[in-house]
């Protein structure tokens, strides 16, 4: 908290903990954005935020993702000590520190990536998960550094690395620094390969721009969640450029599978089993129960 307070001039400081949107009780019922079925919130939670009627995958928070994948025991977080600075004094309609503060209040995260070392069904791994609610999961210097530290720890401890993406792309407020994170994150993965350690990339809704066009597709295995929007340029930009209507299902996981861009589509409810199985196969380990 303290670093954020220092970052902000006093006049825009907020009352501490006045309202944390994330902590407000959710409504009891919610409507599926895909099939419009009215769902009991608890049912949705119990079903990992997958619509029981149509299988639509709602977005998840970074820590929910990690909980879903990792064994509960023996986790520790990597890179939480790395926090953002406003190196360009960036200001659009809002100042960058202000946007950071808002994102922090909304998510309780200090940036858009959470990295943890742990195990999946007793197979040791390092997992990085994007927090889309933090400035659209945008990739800036902190994300890049946390990613690299995660990869380095994976390399040092001879463990595979997994990344679950959910991002609109690069963080414009960090200018060229954010572009360079594409090169930095991807370069770190070469060290993982040198030790023949697997990198599994899990693409979730949405994975776009600079994140999509850097490490996301260099995974040894690239997995997508059903119907996730995945691509380089946003659909609106493409539509404006080519001036034609985009084909049905364009840039969705199933489209990518059809075009040969991803290895497989995995339902979230089977993700943990599938990832464990793939890890065991790639590392020539006995089958996981």
């Amino acid at each position, binding site marked *: *908290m*303290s*670093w954020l307070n220092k970052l902000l001039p006093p006049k825009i400081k907020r009352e501490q903990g006045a309202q944390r949107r994330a902590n407000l009780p959710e409504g009891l019922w919610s409507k599926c954005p895909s099939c419009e079925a009215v769902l009991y919130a608890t049912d949705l939670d119990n079903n990992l935020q997958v619509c029981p009627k149509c299988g639509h995958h709602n977005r998840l928070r970074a820590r929910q993702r990690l909980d879903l994948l990792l064994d509960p025991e023996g986790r520790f*977080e990597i890179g*939480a*000590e*790395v*926090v*953002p*600075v406003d*190196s*360009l004094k*960036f200001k*659009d*309609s809002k100042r960058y520190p202000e946007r950071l503060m808002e994102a922090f209040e909304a998510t309780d995260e200090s940036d858009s990536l959470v990295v943890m070392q742990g195990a999946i069904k007793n197979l040791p791994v390092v997992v990085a998960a994007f927090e889309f609610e933090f400035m659209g999961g945008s990739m*800036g*210097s*902190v994300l*890049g*550094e946390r990613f690299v530290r995660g990869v380095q720890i994976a390399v040092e401890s001879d463990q595979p690395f997994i990344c679950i993406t959910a991002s609109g792309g*690069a963080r*414009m407020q*960090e*200018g*060229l*620094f954010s*572009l*360079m*994170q*594409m*090169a*930095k994150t*991807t*370069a*770190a*993965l*070469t060290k993982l390969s040198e030790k023949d350690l697997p990198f599994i990339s899990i693409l979730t809704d949405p994975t776009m*721009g*600079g994140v*999509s*066009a*850097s*490490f*996301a*597709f*260099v995974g040894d295995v690239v997995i997508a969640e059903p119907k996730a929007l*995945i*691509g*380089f*340029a*946003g659909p609106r*930009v*493409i539509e404006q*450029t*080519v001036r*034609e209507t985009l084909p049905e299902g*364009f840039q969705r996981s199933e489209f990518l599978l059809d*075009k*040969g*861009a991803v290895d497989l589509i995995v339902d979230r409810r089977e993700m943990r089993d599938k990832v464990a199985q793939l890890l065991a196969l790639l590392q020539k380990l006995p089958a996981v129960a």
Partner: protein
Amino acid sequence: MKTSFLDFEQAIADLEAKIEELRFVQDDSAVDISEEIGRLEKKSAQLTKDIYGKLTPWQVAQVARHPQRPYSLDYISRIFTDFEELHGDRAFADDHAIVGGLARFNGQPVVVIGHQKGRDTKEKIFRNFGMPRPEGYRKALRLMRLAEKFDLPVMTFVDTPGAYPGIDAEERGQSEAIGRNLYVMAELKVPIIVTIIGEGGSGGALAIAVGDVVQMLQYSTYSVISPEGCASILWKSAEKAPEAAETMGITAARLKTLGLIDKIVNEPVGGAHRDHAVMAQSLHKALQEALRQVSGLTKAELLQTRYDRLMSYGRFKEQPVS
């Protein structure tokens, strides 16, 4: 070739028009007005120097996109000899927005790769305005691997508004193509010298811009998103592009200060488009210097230095976790 003038150069354009007019009159005039012409020419040169001495980032972006600015092939033909263009990605097609091949630099064989824009409408379409599709990046990758196999340094020239945002490009894996290049350039076992010669537009630029020396021409730009794109997202209005250009930090001078590039190659007064030959000479010297810098290193040193440099990108701070 007649110079075309940008909006902020109107005063220079007026002077030049006047000089032109006087020259025309002088031809069939008994009075000697050459002194007057000389005086105006001097004034025009001084004015150009003044205007270019204090360009705003947005004005620099205009110069970087100047229709007469030298493109990759202009530099290749002036700086290199024995250029043999090599085509195609061996999988789908030959992308004309990226050119590359074998050439000699001061007699030494190298691989050159560059974005290529078109000069007239027909050529612009042929070059897709310098916006590559996946096959362009894959051709570049193939040429880099070729360089590695035969132990030749790679020199790249960056000049693109960005990778092409089209349906076909997405279908063939634009993201994968760019990401793959970033990965391979991080571990390519030969020196890579990168020069941003015009527009360094986002991931589409970076996909051939990871290297051991990264230099920018004085009035080129390098940014994570175009000023117009940034403005329309953050300000909801593309007209705020000048502000976006200012705050993002897209010019060579700013990026040098931020430690993101190594060197600025000066342009002739009034920009590279005023004198292609002089610009090419300066670039030739800069490339020579860059090549000398990296050729002393062993392969291991080269790769370690490149890796360390990549890892050093980013500004953040560290504090105890509460």
